[in-house]
């Protein structure tokens, strides 16, 4: 039997999953990573992406829009919004992209002369768009 660790996925509104898992693939801000039992303690922020959880019964996937993960004795992912992948349909996905797009537009206006926040928002939007290809929905092409 493979080693397992405690995994919790919580969003502000509810707790989505709490189980013993073998590994979790996290869409970290600096790149994807896979957390396995006895991983070194780590805190990372998340980018929009797919969280892949491998339990002994199979894999479960969630779409997360941001938040952070804390790897200590177990793994807790605190997602801003997390939805089971199966529940994300084209309409829900497009709503998420639109939201990111609106945020990007707004940042662009507020921080006209500062590339930093604008780039961040653009990356967020690009990540959000990329999520579409990961979950098998046709990615929506926003006009930047």
């Amino acid at each position, binding site marked *: 039997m493979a080693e397992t660790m405690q995994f919790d996925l*919580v969003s502000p*509104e*509810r707790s989505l999953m709490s189980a013993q898992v073998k590994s979790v693939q996290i869409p970290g801000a*600096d790149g994807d990573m896979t957390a396995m039992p006895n991983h070194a*303690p*780590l*805190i*990372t922020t998340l980018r929009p992406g797919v969280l892949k959880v491998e339990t002994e019964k199979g894999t479960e996937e969630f779409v997360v829009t941001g938040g952070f993960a*804390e790897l200590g004795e177990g793994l807790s992912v605190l997602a801003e919004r997390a939805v089971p992948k199966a529940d994300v349909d084209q309409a829900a996905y497009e709503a998420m992209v639109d939201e990111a797009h609106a945020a990007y537009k707004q940042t662009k206006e507020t921080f006209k002369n500062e590339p930093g926040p604008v780039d961040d928002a653009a990356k967020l939007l690009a990540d959000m768009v990329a999520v579409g290809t990961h979950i098998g929905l046709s990615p929506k092409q926003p006009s930047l």
Partner: protein
Amino acid sequence: MPSLKDLKTRIESVKSTRKITKAMQMVAAAKLRRAQDAAEMARPYTERFNAVMGALAASVGDSDSAPKLLSGTGKDDVQLLVVMTAERGLCGGFNANIAKLAKQKAAELKAKGKTVKILTVGKKGRDAMKRDFGSLFIGHIDLSDVKRIGYADAQGIAKDILGRFDAGEFDVATIFYAKFVNVVSQIPTAQQVIPAAFDAPEEGDAASNTLYDYEPDEEAILADLLPRGVATQIFAALLENGASEQGARMSAMDNATRNAGEMIEKLTIEYNRSRQAVITNELIEIISGAEAL
């Protein structure tokens, strides 16, 4: 002495009042259930969030580069009070208690010579504060269209507050809400959100001894998380408030129903008495009429 008909109408009207308060109590009880569930669901997130933030804040600590949201602006001259109340009344002292606490604090700060600004969330608090502190209002957030409070609502409020903070409109922000203890007791609470105050992890706590790696780096994470922390605290406060409101309404309506019942009893006795008096009167008239013959 009211006439029989007057009494009868009054009894009827108190009866229909009782029906309404009873219905409101039952609705509040059902809503309370949901509000409590929502508050419970949000708790793990808030707890973990605070634990991580506590560890992070302790490690970044008082370094000069610490974000302003954590270390503050170094002043406390301009204070923002965010008063969160319900959109509706008929819930006992709920709104009044929160407003009272906020008023006390505002008066106290003013006496110390600080500038006070007030942002209200919820109509009732706005009405309650208007007379004494209306000139200090800088904004109002209306949640009357919101049926179930979602994280997005809290984010909206947080965004508003953070925008004002970035614009340098205030130095310290405190939120006012009622903490839900149980149906009969809700404690009005003041909580400082900016600069963020996290409980430092206790000594010997497992989490505090862990040395975390940070990805990207501590400060980037902190800069990302602090605004979220504000939203999270506001969200938790909104949920507590929601549960408190329904709890307060439930007990207030329970009292009202009971009072109405007592009143009906009293009125019924009075009604019966006067009815008896009328009958006696008539009898006397008949008898004395018969005797005169």
